[in-house]
């Protein structure tokens, strides 16, 4: 679905290349990547099998630049064409704003084309949409091969909704940009149509409802974490520092590391998670807790210095209770020795 970022004045849209296996979807995207202005295109990312067949999707961001005061960005995806990857295709198609259907013009491929088109329509219906309403363009690819259907024959079989169509030879780049430009233009028309009325709010109820959906494991974790936060300070303060796992990157899912953090907090700190708990530990150099690079995207104020101790450095500190116990023990031992000496 179109994303409007009014803070950045951006419109983000998703265009998906759909079609049967080996029809030329990835080749289309590769050509777009080659031909697009270098400053406007992003990386072409492919999740493919060993044999270079699309496994999940190919992806490429394309920046159209500023249009009437809004930066327009397209995200171009291809789906895996093979029948086997139907569930993956549905995932990629989800949230698409426009579709480019790549049809293989070879006579032997017509059945696969029809099957793929039906699959596209089914996937859209499952998402509460329809191909008829979706901005879509058809490209009749591989026009350079022999034994191909004529464009009229292809249209009769595949273009039921009178969508714009183009002939293409993706391997040589022919018809590729025209197809994309048409789909993008149709999408811009749709965006414009959406903007004619006041922007409505996002479905934040969905946010709220979904937040309540948790797996049983998440419930347990949340409960455990809450209990740790509520009653953790006193109990964890007395825990030995040897529980700290030295190499954090090897730490399995668990809470050992924040136990350490709680231990290092001042007993008077109201909560370790409160933004105001800026208790600074002298045991840690502030610079060690800062991100390695300081080039944030936002131009906000400098980040407040907030340092907590943790990990290996916490191990270097002698925990207060341990020192007290040892001191008491030493005093008692000295007293006892003095009494023994006096009595003897």
């Amino acid at each position: 679905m179109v994303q409007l970022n009014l803070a950045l004045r951006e419109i983000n849209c998703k265009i998906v290349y759909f079609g049967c296996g080996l029809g030329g979807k990835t080749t289309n995207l590769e050509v777009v990547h080659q031909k697009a202005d270098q400053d406007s295109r992003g990386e072409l990312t492919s999740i493919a099998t060993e044999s270079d067949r699309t496994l999940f999707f190919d992806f490429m961001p394309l920046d159209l630049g500023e249009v009437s005061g809004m930066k327009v960005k397209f995200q171009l995806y291809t789906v895996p064409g093979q029948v086997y990857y139907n569930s993956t295709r549905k995932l990629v198609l989800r949230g698409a704003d426009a579709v480019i259907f790549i049809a293989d013009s070879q006579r032997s491929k017509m059945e696969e084309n029809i099957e793929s088109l039906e699959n596209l329509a089914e996937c859209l219906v499952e998402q509460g949409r329809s191909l008829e309403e979706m901005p879509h363009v058809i490209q009749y690819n591989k026009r350079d091969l022999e034994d191909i259907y004529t464009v009229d024959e292809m249209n009769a079989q595949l273009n039921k909704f009178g969508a714009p169509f183009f002939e293409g030879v993706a391997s040589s780049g022919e018809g590729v940009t025209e197809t994309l430009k048409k789909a993008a233009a149709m999408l811009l028309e749709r965006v414009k149509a959406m903007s004619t009325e006041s922007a409505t709010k996002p479905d934040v109820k969905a946010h709220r409802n979904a937040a309540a959906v948790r797996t049983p494991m998440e419930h347990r974790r949340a409960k455990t974490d809450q209990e740790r936060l509520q009653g953790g300070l006193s109990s964890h303060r007395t825990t030995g520092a040897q529980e700290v796992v030295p190499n954090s990157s090897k730490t399995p899912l668990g809470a050992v590391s924040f136990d350490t953090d709680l231990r290092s907090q001042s007993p008077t700190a109201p909560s370790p998670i409160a933004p105001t708990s800026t208790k600074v530990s002298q045991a840690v150099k502030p610079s060690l807790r800062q991100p390695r690079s300081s080039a944030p995207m936002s131009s906000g104020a400098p980040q407040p210095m907030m340092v907590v101790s943790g990990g290996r450095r916490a191990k270097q500190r002698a925990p207060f209770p341990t020192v007290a116990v040892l001191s008491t023990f030493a005093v008692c031992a000295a007293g006892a020795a003095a009494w023994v000496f006096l009595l003897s």
Partner: protein
Amino acid sequence: MGVSPQLIEGMSKMNDTDRLRQNRLVFYREDIEQILVLLRELMTLSGAKCALLIDKEGHLVTREGAANGFDSDSLSALVAGSFAATKEMARLLGEAEFSVMFHQGQRDNIQLTLVGDRTILTVIFDDQTQLGMIRLYTQECVKKLQDVFDRSAGREAPDLELGGDFEDTGRASLDDLFK
């Protein structure tokens, strides 16, 4: 009384446009500012390197922290894809959704946490901090982000002014893109 095919087509298009208008995700300036404050706080408290808020369609909403050479757009698309695939795995296992994902690397790690139904909080961190810290502060951040979205629900929506030449300028820009 019959209805002309043109009228049916027109109504159909209108319905789809309305549907898109209803479903599109809008982030307002105030929301983004609040989200950035929360991401900054998360990074400071947890010691993470970078925090990104991404919508489920793979569009980056906003980012705080250093990108360190990675392409945010590509990462956003892959995060959304990864989350979508995981959701299907959850469905096969009879779960509604896995709300947290964690990937461990040699140097950098990444944690993905669902915020509501349509956005994913992505936190990138290295061995300067620990997973527990990330998990703890991310959970808090997710709750606060949720509050931001909830507050946003009651706000008056501004008009989106695209100008009369939006489509023409767009077509011209498309031509420029493939000169």
